[in-house]
């Protein structure tokens, strides 16, 4: 056990699974450091954010593959390889690039098993970074987990911390279904205690990062951190919150969400994805249908506006959910009259 960053936790998960199972391979743009450069440097990059650095030197070019910048062919190749005996972990760099390879994910990998009458296994993991907060603007900042969650046949993981990331990624690699594993780009340097050994965290079981009596907050990925901070502040003001990190949006631990809403009677959902048809909408519908009688007041959602992610910091800050916005939403859900936060 030692303190590890989100980046190290993911690297360690990949490394341990590659040691354990020779069928596990890693592919993506620059993941083997970038080939064909003029410096002769080996493993120069390790992916654009250095997550896969060091894998090439340990596992060699047969198992750590740089790809051309052709998402359709290599994501499709990962799907085809998964269906024929390998366990590929493909890095899509920015999840926004899914526009270039959605067919391979949505129509191919996700549907093999059902279309083929249950005879296919597609143990594929697609890692991609997501999320706003880095001034990366509209094509490099989206939180597209609802898009994947919408597609039957995919599992979708949104880890909220280094510990969670390592255990969930190992689970993803050992899983026999296609898994979309989304890493918030602002979190790569977050640190916490992470066991040195390999371990798994099952999909579809939410984690309660804190338990309270007054209100339930459901948050995803980096929003879990903000929700915890808001809950800390609220605790000091006498409002005690349960914070649910569902860990996976597909499968979704609906039981835990409904149980907690039944206990607290109030719900705030913090979702970094665009507001229409997102997880907040999905969970609101779930609670409205199955826990309506438990609700003491309206559900509140903390979400960005229905706009692309803006570039300028002042706009990006306005766009993103924040601790203050969560705090205000909780108070509003508690029936307090609070000034609106811009």
């Amino acid at each position, binding site marked *: 056990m030692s303190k590890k960053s989100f980046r190290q936790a993911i690297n360690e998960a990949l490394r341990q699974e590659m040691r354990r199972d020779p069928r596990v391979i890693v592919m993506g743009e620059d993941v083997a450091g970038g080939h064909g450069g003029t410096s002769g440097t080996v493993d120069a990059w390790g992916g654009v954010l250095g997550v896969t650095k060091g894998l090439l030197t340990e596992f060699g070019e047969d198992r750590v593959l740089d790809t051309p910048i052709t998402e359709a062919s290599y994501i499709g190749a990962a*799907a085809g390889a998964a269906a024929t005996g390998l366990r590929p972990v493909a890095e899509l760099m920015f999840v926004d690039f899914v526009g270039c390879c959605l067919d391979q994910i949505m129509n191919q990998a996700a549907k093999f098993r059902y279309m083929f009458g249950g005879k296919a296994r597609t143990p594929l993991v697609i890692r991609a970074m997501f999320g706003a907060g880095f001034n990366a603007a509209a094509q490099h900042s989206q939180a597209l987990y609802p898009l994947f969650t919408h597609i039957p046949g995919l599992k979708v993981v949104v880890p909220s911390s280094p510990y969670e990331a390592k255990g969930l990624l190992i689970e993803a690699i050992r899983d026999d279904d296609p898994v979309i594993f989304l890493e918030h780009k602002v979190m790569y340097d977050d640190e916490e205690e992470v066991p040195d050994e390999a371990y798994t965290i099952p999909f579809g079981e939410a984690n309660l990062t804190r338990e309270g009596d007054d209100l339930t907050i459901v948050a995803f990925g980096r929003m879990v951190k903000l929700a915890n901070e808001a809950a800390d502040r609220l605790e000091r003001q006498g409002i005690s919150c349960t914070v649910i990190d569902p860990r996976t949006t597909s499968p979704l631990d609906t039981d835990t969400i409904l149980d907690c809403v039944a206990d607290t009677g109030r719900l705030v959902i913090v979702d970094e994805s665009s507001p229409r048809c997102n997880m907040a909408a999905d969970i609101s519908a779930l609670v409205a249908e199955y826990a309506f009688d438990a609700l003491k007041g309206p559900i509140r959602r903390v979400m960005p506006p229905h706009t692309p992610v803006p570039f300028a910091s002042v706009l990006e800050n306005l766009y993103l959910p924040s601790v203050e916005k969560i705090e205000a939403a909780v108070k509003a859900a508690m029936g307090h009259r609070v000034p609106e936060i811009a």
Partner: protein
Amino acid sequence: MQIARETLLRSYRAMRTIRDFEERLHVEFATGEIPGFVHLYCGEEASGVGVCANLTDQDTIASTHRGHGHCIAKGVEVAGMMAEIYGRRTGVCQGKGGSMHIADLSRGMLGANGIVGGGPPLICGAALSHKTLKDGAVAVAFYGDGASNEGTTLESLNLASVWRLPAVFVLEDNGYGEATGASYACAGSQKARAGGFGMPYLECDGTDFFAVHQAAGEAIAHARAGNGPVMLHVHLARWYGHFEGDAMTYRAAGEVAAARADHDCLTIFRTRVTQAGLLDGTELDDIDSAVRDEIESAVIAAKQAPLPEAADLLADVYVRY
């Protein structure tokens, strides 16, 4: 190249099976009993069979929306295919895939594909599996002239060359992407495309089993030996419409009739083997009659087979959820 007698008999049987399977579907589809839509492979039999005669169950193929022929050529069971097309629980995909999604991974058949250009990236992956697992197998992507223009195909040609994959790209060029002619839709030349990606290019007459078998044999041997991918351009004619019900008003009168009369791969094969004394006509007649019975019983069985059950709707979305 000498082809073993058994291979000839098996190949003729496969071509005849495809022909009868498709002709029967043409008839049955018109009765309204077959749900969805089907795309027939009639006229193109020698291509799929000539290529697959060079493959084993360990080798992988990916097919297209016009996939029945490739399935049969790769050894997928005919009765199960027929039941699948009828949407029956006994179908190879339990009635959940239908005509465009027939797959049998145990036969190295990675699926027909409803998406034009869907197969080539998958075949890069299958070839990567073969290369990484060092099992000596190759992967073959069948794709049409329409798919030859898809970005996925062009990306895959590049990736296969970059990774030096044991892959063969079999371009089945029947002259039409749906209703649009290849002469309009395909710029430049396919040969130049192969050359542009640094891979060997072979072409052959797709109505001549021997030509296909010879060219595919060379291409597959090249890939299997670890020399990287090859493009095999097979020239064909499509006897039916893009889908069943297509009146083919975009084709000149007599185009299909001429193909049937002068370029029927089964006739060409029969003439060739009997004249060369490789097989005699009665052997082929016996196969014709056996295949007729097989297709007949497949249709009867499919019509009588049980429909999927309500619980099947929710099954097999995931291995575990």
